[in-house]
């Protein structure tokens, strides 16, 4: 992966202020899809926060990722409303369909499967987010449709 090392524009947004570390990291992640080590080293020097301290912050927050994202990132919401409407069953179904556990990437880099505590679209429970788009009221049937659409999209490209 070719990483563009110019992150000064992001840092400048926050005046190189170390208290904005979480904002900086999330902007970096928006840009690259994850937090590349080289970029972290660069930030560490420029805002004078040690890498170990940054690691402490990164590992604390669930949204930060140290691996490049898969092509399709499937996030199954595990909020309460989703849970009582079958989110766990849906997750297990997707896990067995894709042969992936939550938190894993498929070896071909095509899928990553994640859970999230709640995306706040509870009235449409159970919800699934694929690459940022929210799909509501899921059943095995809609999941089959979603997954085959992803497969199809892949073939068409």
């Amino acid at each position, binding site marked *: 992966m070719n990483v563009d090392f110019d992150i000064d524009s992001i840092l400048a947004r926050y005046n190189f202020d170390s208290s904005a570390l979480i904002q900086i990291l999330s902007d970096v992640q928006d840009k690259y899809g994850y937090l590349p080590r080289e970029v972290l080293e660069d930030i560490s020097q420029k805002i004078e926060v040690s890498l170990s301290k940054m690691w402490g912050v990164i590992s604390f927050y669930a949204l930060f990722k140290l691996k490049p994202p898969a092509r399709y990132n499937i996030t199954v919401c595990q909020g309460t*409303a989703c849970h009582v409407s079958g989110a766990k069953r849906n997750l297990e*179904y997707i896990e067995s369909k894709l042969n992936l556990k939550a938190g894993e990437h498929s070896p071909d880099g095509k899928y990553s499967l994640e859970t999230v505590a709640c995306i706040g679209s*509870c009235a*449409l429970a159970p919800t699934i987010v694929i690459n940022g788009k929210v799909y509501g009221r899921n*059943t095995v049937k809609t999941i089959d449709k979603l997954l085959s659409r992803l497969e199809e999209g892949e073939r068409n490209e």
Partner: protein
Amino acid sequence: MNKSNHFHDITEEAILLSKEKHNKNRIIIGYGTCGIAAGAEEVLKEVQQVLHELKIDDVIIEKTGCIGCCSYEPLMDIELANSPRVSYKNVKPKEVKEIIDKHFEGELKKEKVFCMFDEQENIIQNQESWKYNIPEIYSGLPTFKSLPMLKKQKRITLRNVGIIDPENINDYLARGGYQALYKALTALSPKEVIDEIKSSGLRGRGGAGFPTGVKWEFAYNAELSKTTEDSIEKTEKYVVCNADEGDPGAFMDRSLIEGDPHSVIEGLTIAAYAIGATKGFIYIRAEYPLAIKRLEIALKQAYENHFLGDNIFGTDFHFSIEIRKGAGAFVCGEETALINSIMGLRGEPRPRPPYPAVSGLWGKPTIINNVKTLVTVPVILLNGAKWFSSIGTEDTKGTAVFALTGDVKNSGLVEVPMGTTLREIIFDIGGGVKGDKQFKAVQTGGPSGGCIPFSLIDTPVDFASLKKLGSIMGSGGMIVCSESTCMVDLARYFMTFIASESCGKCTPCREGTVRALEMLEKITSGDATIDILTDLEQLSLVIKDTALCGLGQTAPNPILSTLKYFREEYIEHIEQKVCRAKVCPGLFNYVINDDLCIKCGVCQNVCPVDAVFGSKETGFFIENRLCISCNACFERCPKRAIEKVN
């Protein structure tokens, strides 16, 4: 003086523009996260396409926030010039053309009509409510306020959500926006603002219910105590809006920000003026991208109109707001953890006192208020403390906002006067349980709350009553559980959540919640003996008494409340190895009813773990030992021939 004239001018212009809107044809689409997930984006595209096809070009397309009737999303409203706004429900893209075509021809596709707005009410006194003329063809349509879902609601906090275009500051101004800030800054002293809020009886809507005015007073006085003769320099102070709505099952704050972002800004600015802060932060979950985007737009507009920045309304009050995004940590909703997170650190809590009002961000006095609290503030200043305190109960004034979800017919946003009973909320407003299922419990307060059984359904909602039952008001998640929810599994679910969200700083929470989860997992998999209940109860009480912060102290509530009200379900799991709700894998079986089965083989095709054996000739059977209870066969069977049995 110039600046205040300027304010009157732009307000008047905004009112004019908003009135003119009613002289034009408009199509309004519910464009909150829920609406978009339900398909609003596709509906919007179709609307644009259809208008182009029908060569209708004098239509304004507007996006609004979530009006709170989420089960009916996507909602598409049409308002023809000088006619009422008619709302169409569950609109599919393929239906758009017919609906628009008919509506513009003066006909209504009645079966798709959700309701009609006969007025655009304004809760703020001295502000005009817009009344629509109702032509003949509209008569007989249910009005928005007469819908069973709305009848018992009183919308103060949600006053603008779903009504205004959240990306248009004029819409907010036209409905009394920034009037309260103007009043505070030009006519009231900070102390008077605090007194007004104090006497209104407003309590923090984030869950704990601490009196807002008292909290502000602490921070206000923090300055006085430090002003000695040598230091005339004012202590720096901060105000923070807590929009880290981490409770799974809650989305009130998201909807509020998505639908009415300026009211949050106005409330926060008033708070800053009251305590003497010049800098504010809105701490918001990164999981809410749309809310963040709308806030950014609103902030920009507020700066452009000089409602933020230097010398607001020509006074010597300066204030600026910065958005700080969270990064996915539930504990950051706890105020001391939130403070650390804003400063770019790990979001770990610390013991209180000192309270943030005395020592918060960078050691300075800081007040942290929930979104709903802040949104309520402007109305109190405009309508008066007396007006506000006349609503609600002795214990808790005003209204409560809930996100009603789960197995309920009308899921969505609900705002009712405090003291409304759970029964009224769930059955009158929510329409009762979905399908023909039986009501079992209602869960309030998220992972810090508890489950309330049917026998206590007539409990009024206020801080004290819910606490007495072992639940809490919380920030407003209300999840209705039917007979198909297993209460032990629900307790296990919350403990899974807490165990993974525990920050790890204190032992009772870090270790205790994991041990409690292990016990619950034993019970739900049928591997426990009866004495586990005593251990579980004891452990829960220890965590409650000894954990460092609110997250840990309230974490055992889901266990304790289900043990209290649904103990028999625990005992069934342990002694009879039965899950009556048929949720816990292994404690029930899937069986094919041969009388209904048509041997189509769908179950075998969809089973992801090949637990269905047989063929189209011989019929099928399910080997439950291989089954992972994903429910795929049950859901996909065209004849509903698959049954769950104990």
